[in-house]
């Protein structure tokens, strides 16, 4: 059973009255409640040179609030049979809680305390900044993270999506208590919040709990989005992240993708499914099944508040990296120039329509679809009419969307590997490069 409750006057656009929107998916199946408190703003607000600020502020919420120390807060959450976590993206901050129903009231009070009465103790901030520094160093162990970081840096050069959400070591160490407090005041306003409940909680009770969650927050309008539509750069660029002793490479190819507000987004989504979205996609067959080059071969088309990146991901052995990139470029070009076949389109539509059952098989998934519409400015019927929209895609729609949105010229290639061994071969595999960067894996 789904409900979208709003304190809005039905005629009022957006969140003009400065009150949170509330979404509820009620299910008695398990004694479990999932809560998401989402803010319509994120790390894009971090000042230049202070990257990582929003993430540090959000992590500080649980390190002391309403008279509780950091340790007392953690012990209380665990003892209640609850989990509280937080995510920070460029455009959204989300606090999540999963809780056994009997402890729902106490967990709501803890969430409210985190949001409205964080201590922001200077000693604790210092500890978190040092901890974050260690985590940034540790992240260099993950080749996939390194590839993603440098891929996004180039695809979204000069745009908030290209910045490092967790910050750099210098930017994190530059943060002060005043920065953290200012960031909190900037984001945490009643009107900037949407709240989703899923599971063992009825609509009326959810409304009452939502009121308790935000009661102590200051009023205020939604934070205006600072994220503009990212632009393409119109050229081929390669970044090679040099790391010693790599037997394997991590490779990302891609560019700026699309957004559900684009009229051809669903058509491109269907086409991407054929190209690299399933286990029998063109990429998977050519790269994994026929050649055994990479354990995985995928294409993705995610969205955010604006267009995110279309990307192709493979991880072949170092010896196969150059050939794999060359093959990916061929596949990309063939997809763009020759399009899909009618048979492929029919297959993709059947797959997407029938597997939609797993997009909505839990109350948590259903409520998050409603939340996404609100947070990412999706068309109001994006999820509700998803199946109809997929069914309506024609072969011309899919092929035209591919030609319009996917370019084999405007492309970023990010590779993590050992440059002395394969750097030259990899660069040769990408004709027409306008720019080649080689960066050390541990460079900040």
């Amino acid at each position: 059973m789904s409900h979208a409750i709003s304190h809005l006057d039905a005629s009022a656009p957006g969140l003009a009255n400065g009150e949170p929107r509330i979404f509820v998916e009620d299910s008695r199946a398990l004694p479990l409640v999932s809560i998401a408190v989402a803010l319509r703003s994120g790390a894009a607000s971090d000042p230049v040179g202070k990257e990582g600020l929003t993430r540090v502020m959000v992590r500080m919420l649980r390190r002391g609030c309403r008279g509780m120390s950091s340790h007392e807060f953690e012990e209380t959450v665990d003892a209640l049979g609850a989990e509280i976590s937080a995510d920070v993206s460029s455009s959204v901050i989300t606090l999540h809680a999963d809780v056994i129903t009997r402890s729902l009231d106490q967990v709501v009070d803890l969430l409210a305390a985190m949001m409205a009465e964080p201590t922001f103790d200077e000693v604790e901030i210092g500890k978190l900044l040092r901890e974050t520094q260690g985590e940034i160093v540790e992240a260099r162990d993950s080749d996939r993270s390194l590839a993603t970081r440098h891929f996004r840096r180039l695809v979204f050069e000069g745009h908030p999506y290209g910045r490092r959400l967790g910050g750099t070591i210098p930017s994190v160490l530059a943060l002060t208590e005043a920065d953290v407090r200012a960031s909190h005041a900037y984001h945490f306003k009643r009107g900037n919040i949407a709240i989703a409940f899923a599971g063992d909680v009825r609509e009326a009770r959810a409304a009452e709990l939502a009121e308790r969650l935000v009661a102590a927050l200051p009023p205020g309008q939604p934070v205006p989005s600072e994220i503009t539509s990212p632009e393409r750069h119109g050229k081929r660029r390669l970044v090679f992240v040099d790391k010693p002793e790599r037997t394997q490479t991590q490779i990302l190819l891609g560019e700026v993708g699309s957004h559900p507000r684009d009229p051809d987004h669903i058509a491109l989504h269907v086409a991407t499914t054929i190209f690299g979205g399933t286990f029998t996609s063109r990429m998977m067959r050519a790269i994994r099944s026929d050649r055994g080059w990479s354990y995985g071969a995928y294409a993705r088309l995610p969205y955010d508040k604006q267009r995110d990146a279309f990307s192709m991901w493979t991880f072949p052995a170092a010896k196969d990296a150059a050939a794999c990139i060359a093959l990916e470029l061929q596949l990309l070009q063939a997809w763009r120039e020759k399009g899909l076949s009618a048979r492929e389109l029919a297959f993709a539509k059947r797959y997407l329509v029938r597997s939609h059952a797993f997009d909505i098989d839990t109350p948590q998934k259903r409520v998050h679809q409603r939340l996404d519409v609100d947070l990412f400015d999706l068309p109001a019927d994006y999820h509700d009419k998803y199946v109809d929209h997929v069914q309506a895609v024609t072969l011309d729609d899919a092929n035209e969307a591919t030609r319009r949105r996917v370019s084999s010229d405007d492309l970023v290639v990010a590779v993590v590997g050992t440059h002395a061994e394969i750097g030259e071969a990899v660069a040769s595999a990408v004709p027409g490069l306008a720019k080649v960067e080689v960066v050390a894996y541990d460079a900040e």
Partner: protein
Amino acid sequence: MTQTVPTTQENARASQRRAEIIRELNAEKPPGARIEHEGSIPLGPAMLVQRYRLGNGLTVLTSIDASAPVVSYHTWFAVGSRHERAGKTGLAHLFEHLMFNETENHPAGSFDRTLEEAGAESNAATWVDWTFYHESIPKDRVGLVIELEAERMSRLVLREPQVTSEKEVVANERRYRVDDDVEGAVSELLYKTAYTTHAYSWPTIGWMTDIEGFTTEDCAGFYRTYYAPNNATVVVVGDFRERDLLAKIQKAYGGLESADIPVEDVRPEPPQSEERRLSVKKPTATDKLAIAYHGPAFGDVDHVPLTMLSEVLFAGRSSRAHRTLVQKEEIATELRGWVSTFRDPGLFEIYATARPGKTSAELLAALDRELARVVSEPVTTFELDKVKAKVELALVQSLETASGKAEQIGFYHTVLGDAAGAFARLEAYRRTTRSDLLRVARRYLASERRTLIEVHPETSGNGG
């Protein structure tokens, strides 16, 4: 252990109806296809698992869950890397990959394509004790999964080109998970060093030289030996009609022959009498530490309290070790503890990552202080209760989807022979006392049972 639900008037009626259905299904069927209802097993307070067996030995566990119009279908085989031998490691895992290839009635590539076209999500996993294949599918397509799974259980076609290509895929998976991954490589070394005799000493993915050396004949032999209905359990959870489901399963699997499953050549691990310590260099920025104490089997009475002790020490920011090493002393970035959930005695594993500029020796000294504390004095009642609340939440979370329920049922049935083992284990957590934790700390956290791998950066990187 199968527990029969206490008979009530309603259950008696359901039981009578089930008996009628089975009589009807078994009419004029050969012995291998005949279905026997072995019991109804309560799965927590609100769910039931029905246990059936076909004449050919196939176990079928079903649980109706109509909360979404989907069905999750799992096939668990009681074969894993423990059934391999030296020189042929990784065969169970390679074989799992090959199961997605050609069968007598379906050409190469059509298995995945047919399932995807039906809207299914499918995958598989292999570990030391088991291999399982799983599909989640819209409820009106469950017959398709039954037909495909029964087909590949008995009529898989193995050809050289597919074996060669899949060996390459697995070699790449190994590079991804082990060779280029510091923690993966260290974990492999930890097990290789901690076990000298038992098959748990080699990695499930296999040594690279073994992967490269497999032949089509190796794969065919493995298939003939272990892939048979009497070595498998089918678990079905979701929105279906019991009678229709059983009829389809009977039709698809009833004609399959059971096999002589070989007696397992078990070699128990001898007691470890002194600490084993290695030091390795890896391309990483900071020191790391991997520790393993020989621990109990998953079904051992000590497994629950040792798991709870691991939670007290390492689970989350309120745990003892996190509080000391990460928050107070600021010498670690990350800490984890885990007691392996294996059929034979496993390991209590601990992983710790040092802050830049800190050493594995400092990590070890601090960890040893925390470990000595739990050996010398009981944990607090608050700590014990906190763990009980956390494991209850984890169990409820694992039951959110039909697939989650099927996995719990299949795993506990395959490893412990108890489809409702997850709830039995929850009860065991609730019964556990502070004395139990002190007992297992003293039994298992002995230095002579320990293996320790120190990891140091290979080159001096930019540590900050």
